[in-house]
């Protein structure tokens, strides 16, 4: 663990010394801010329409189910598009610059190298998500949303991110070119996102495809529901790609 943390610390330092992290954080803050403002406006307008109808519609608006839930679901899509930028350089850059030789001849295991890099990317992702606390703070300031569903949604986002980063780490370990790594990751995620729509057609195959959808498992979390099924999906998803990443790093030794 100490070895993995050594790797992770350097990795975070490197990310914060390069512009990529800041561009990413900036892009996320901008896009999330846009979603937030848009959803909030719709929510407020809907609320005003309801009060004008004098409660005839019979429904009430809930900050959790009618605003935060959709916001979190959209955040998941945002994360899906942005995280390849965070994972693409992790291993590729080390291969390109030759520092992989330093890591592979150090008394640490291949698993520790991969896990250290994963931890670093995950921590940066956590920092990125923390930006959204600002917006939610506004909601908590002017309203009283339930806390538990919000926490569940964040847990979901963290798990989703862990899975995406693990996958990105694997693709990054395949090539010395971080652009190629990013594009491969992006392509893979696109497929794993689109299977949700393919899965919607139903049938046995449809059910399998729907299960494989990376964002599909986010819906429960977004609405505050934590299921074993979703937990298992994300954890095994992350573990699967981390395992492949380790094997890929190991195979680099054979290929030289």
């Amino acid at each position, binding site marked *: 663990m100490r070895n993995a943390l050594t790797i992770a610390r*350097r990795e975070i330092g490197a990310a914060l010394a390069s512009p990529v992290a800041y561009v990413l954080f900036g892009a996320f803050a901008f896009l999330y801010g846009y979603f937030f403002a848009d959803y909030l406006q719709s929510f407020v307008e809907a609320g005003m329409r309801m009060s004008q109808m004098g409660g005839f519609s019979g429904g009430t608006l809930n900050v959790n189910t009618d605003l935060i839930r959709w916001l979190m679901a959209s955040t998941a899509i945002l994360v899906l598009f942005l995280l390849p930028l965070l994972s693409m350089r992790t291993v590729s850059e080390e291969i390109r610059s030759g520092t992989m030789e330093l890591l592979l001849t150090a*008394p640490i295991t291949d698993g520790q190298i991969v896990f250290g890099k994963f931890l670093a990317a995950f921590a940066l992702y956590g920092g990125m998500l923390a930006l959204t606390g600002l917006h939610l703070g506004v909601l908590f300031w002017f309203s009283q949303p339930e806390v538990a569903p919000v926490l569940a949604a964040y847990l979901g986002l963290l798990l989703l991110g862990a899975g995406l980063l693990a996958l990105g780490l694997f693709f990054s370990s395949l090539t010395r070119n971080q652009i190629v790594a990013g594009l491969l990751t992006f392509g893979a995620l696109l497929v794993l996102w689109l299977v949700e729509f393919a899965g919607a057609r139903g049938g046995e195959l449809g059910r399998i495809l729907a299960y494989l959808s990376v964002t599909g498992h986010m819906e429960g979390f977004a609405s505050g529901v934590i299921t074993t099924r979703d937990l298992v999906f994300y954890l095994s998803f992350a573990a699967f790609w981390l395992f492949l990443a380790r094997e890929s790093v190991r195979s680099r030794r054979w290929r030289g």
Partner: protein
Amino acid sequence: MEPGHRPLVLVDRVSKRYGRTLAVAELSFGVARGEVLGFLGPNGAGKTTTMRVITGFMPPTEGRVLVGGLDIAEAPLEVRRRIGYLPENPPLYPEMEVSAFLEFAARLRGVPRSRVREAVAGAIERSALGEARDRIIGKLSRGYRQRVGLAQALVHEPDLLVLDEPTAGLDPKQIHETRELIRALAGERTVVLSTHILPEVAVTCDRVVIIAGGRLRAEDTPERLVARLGAARRGRGTWEIETTAPADTAAAALRAVPGVAAVEAGAETTERTLVLQVEATGDREVATDLARAVLGAGAPLYALRRSGASLEDVFLALTTEETEADEVGDADSGNGAGPPGAPEDDS
């Protein structure tokens, strides 16, 4: 290796194959404790591959490597802890400060937390990096980067230092400093260094392993290798004589000396001075005859030196595919044919 000493490193019939290319073939040699071993070979001979196998970067296809009695394949982490490795391109993170990078390297190599600071200070001092301590690696000159590379290999006080072309790309002053540093390390540390620069071996190494085409060609001290080739040439030597041009008379007089096989104007010949390359059999005594011949012809004599078997000759003889008969019979000078065969691996 000296008999009776248990070697620190034992390379035992190691072969390494990349796909269908055989990079290293059944290579065996040992490195004694405290020794500086020069690993010599043309580009693409398998030097880097062998070093990568020794450092545990890659497993051999066949054979095994023992370091301190431990098999790399069985105790990879334990072995890697004892090795400091400087690859051909120093593995540096350009965005880091020198001291921060060395701290990272120390931690990575398993230096206990409480001793990291001390280890870094020691490595900085040894590599003469004091003034660059707080500078960003990416902004350092090539020479300083090489020193940082050396410092990261030293930081955990390894038993064995493996240096892949440690002086490549340095200017003469830096090369000299690097060699001094390596000499200073000898004795307390065991060093394996690769190079294709011949004088480097004679200056820094106790023993030489010459490989070509992934195979072992020779293994001995630099002096004995030179002596061995000298013997193979059966007393034939090349002499350089510096006199004044034109030298038809001097050349004619030299040809008359018994034992002289050929006299040629050397490459350094200018308008006023003339360097004659004289091929002659016989040992040192022939020098007197040569001098007498020049002076007897009425030409001045500025210098007379033997340019016989050098390490360079040994190297060329061993790494080119010539047979012994060709080597002896081939009297012409300036045969600078590069080593053929060995495919370029460019790494």
